[in-house]
């Protein structure tokens, strides 16, 4: 249970106990008041008791209703007055109380009673105001009755004192309840503020994920490309030595010819026939290798070209083609990579980011098929959306994994093989474009990821 909930509960408890205290105290005061009547007006004992109990009985019912309805103050006063008048009428019928008694005691009593009841919902400061008014009213009534018996004035005064005592107690309880409510509110606000901070931190972290993932993806790509470059580099390095030897042999032959030496004798020793054919082969091999390095460079440039800060008008097919061109070399001969390009209109998007989505999805598919299988990459135009789908012939996605697919750090790959940020990043990028990415649930053999992008990103 949080602090806020605890305080909220305490406040409710205090609220309940404040009502309870009111009723208990009033119940205790009744016999006391009756006892007091013995001294002030022993001749009206039965009448007083019947007036009090009928008012109190009806008032208790009204009291309960007031509490339950939580209505505004004015309707409560109106209802209270109505109930009191009803009580007076009942008492009148039961005991035929003299009019002076009814006027002096029951009205005063009902004011005190209802003032106390209303104090349960009014602010604490109202106590002073209400009881001052009650006192003035009672003095006024006593004077208006021709100041009959001083004891009847003190009788009323006694009511006021006891009611003040109740109100003081109830007020104290209410103040504590208010304090607890305030604490609860403060705690809730504090929790909300903490949540807001946590949310901001999370958002910030997510943005960092995307940046990290981008570096990871680039790192992986660079590792693949460096391997791609190694082979042609190796060929070039291994051919440079022989070519310079061949050149030396040819130079030597030229020197002999110029000096009028026995070129025929040196011909075989210098392997001139072999040198002539093999040098051309070596140079061709170097040229081919240089061409391979250049092709890698061109693909990399095409892939990186779209990495702009703002969305630009671009062709999704171009992006997919350049991404596949770069990945294709590391695809083994037993993996079939099928490309199908639909007729697409130009659209506005971050081509560099969308290329990263394509790259991640195809890399995942390559990892899943594990060197042998089939991967289909398809683009299409549906309504006002560009659709990119990557389908693999791997084992598919388990029911358990489906629920977490796009969460950061979720991975089904071995430790150290996957960061768990690939699909999370795809999700971030696609969402930022106002699009969607999902696993095609209807596809049963392998996995099929579908990305839908609007023709223009949200403003």
């Amino acid at each position, binding site marked *: 249970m949080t602090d806020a909930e605890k305080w909220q509960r305490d406040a409710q408890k205090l609220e309940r106990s404040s009502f309870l205290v009111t009723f208990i105290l009033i119940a205790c005061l009744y016999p006391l008041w009756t006892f007091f009547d013995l001294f002030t007006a022993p001749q009206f004992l039965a009448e007083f008791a019947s007036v009090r109990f009928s008012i109190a009985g009806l008032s208790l019912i009204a009291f309960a209703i007031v509490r339950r309805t939580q209505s505004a103050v004015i309707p409560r006063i109106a209802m209270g007055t109505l109930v009191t008048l009803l009580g007076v009428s009942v008492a009148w019928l039961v005991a035929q109380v003299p009019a002076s008694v009814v006027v002096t005691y029951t009205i005063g009593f009902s004011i005190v009673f209802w003032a106390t009841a209303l104090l349960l919902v009014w602010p604490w400061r109202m106590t002073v105001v209400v009881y001052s008014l009650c006192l003035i009213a009672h003095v006024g009534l006593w004077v208006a009755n021709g100041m009959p018996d001083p004891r009847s004035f003190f009788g009323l005064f006694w009511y006021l004192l006891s009611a003040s005592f109740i109100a003081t107690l109830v007020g104290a309880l209410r103040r504590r309840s208010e304090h607890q409510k305030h604490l609860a509110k403060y705690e809730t606000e504090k929790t909300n503020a903490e949540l807001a901070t946590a949310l901001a931190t999370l958002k910030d972290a997510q943005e960092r994920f995307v940046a990290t993932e981008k570096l990871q993806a680039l790192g992986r790509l660079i590792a693949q490309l460096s*391997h791609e470059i190694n082979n042609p580099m*190796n060929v070039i390095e*291994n051919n440079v030595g022989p070519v310079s030897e061949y050149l030396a042999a040819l130079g030597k032959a030229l020197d002999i010819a110029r000096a009028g030496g026995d070129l025929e004798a040196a011909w075989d020793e210098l392997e001139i026939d072999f040198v002539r054919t093999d040098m051309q082969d070596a140079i061709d091999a170097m040229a081919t290798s240089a061409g391979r390095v250049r092709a890698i460079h061109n693909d990399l440039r095409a892939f990186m070209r779209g990495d702009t800060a703002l969305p630009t008008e671009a062709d999704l097919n171009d992006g997919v083609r350049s991404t596949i061109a770069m990945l294709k070399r590391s695809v083994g001969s037993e993996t079939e990579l099928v490309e199908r390009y639909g007729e697409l209109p130009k659209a506005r998007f971050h081509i560099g980011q969308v290329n990263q989505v394509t790259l991640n999805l195809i890399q995942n598919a390559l990892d899943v098929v594990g060197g042998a299988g089939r991967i289909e990459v398809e683009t299409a135009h549906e309504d006002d959306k560009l659709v990119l789908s990557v389908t693999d012939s791997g084992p598919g996605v388990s029911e358990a994994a489906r629920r977490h697919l796009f969460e950061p750090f979720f991975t089904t790959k071995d430790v150290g093989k996957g960061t768990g940020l690939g699909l999370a990043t795809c999700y971030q990028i696609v969402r930022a474009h106002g699009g969607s990415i999902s696993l095609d649930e209807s596809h049963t053999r392998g996995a099929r990821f579908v990305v839908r992008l609007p023709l223009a990103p949200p403003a």
Partner: protein
Amino acid sequence: MAGSSVVEPVRKPVVLIVDDENENLRAFARSFRKELDVKTASSGPAAIDMLAAEPVDMVITDYTMPAMNGVQVLSIAAEKWPHVKRLIISGHTDLAELHSAHRLGLAAELLPKPFRKADVLATIERLLGTP
């Protein structure tokens, strides 16, 4: 006997080079044709066939190859022809599998790719003990 020495033609070490890229094989053969008797195989299974068919002093294999990778080639070679020295070449010298192959003695050395001819010759010389 002085003067009558007929220089024995020094037998060049027979080295089998395994790589799935033909250009690499040809470049290697070209580069080492004077120092080594270079045999080539363009896949793991082809290399095993060649080891079975001809006497070979050393096998040098690329790591990344389809069907059978370099470590798999060397483990078969180590089992069947333990006298044949074994070397592995890779562009990814940080791969754990290569290091464990080295540790287990499957490969006497790891050579980075691209390699320098002088480094390869020095390694061969050290392993075969011939100039």
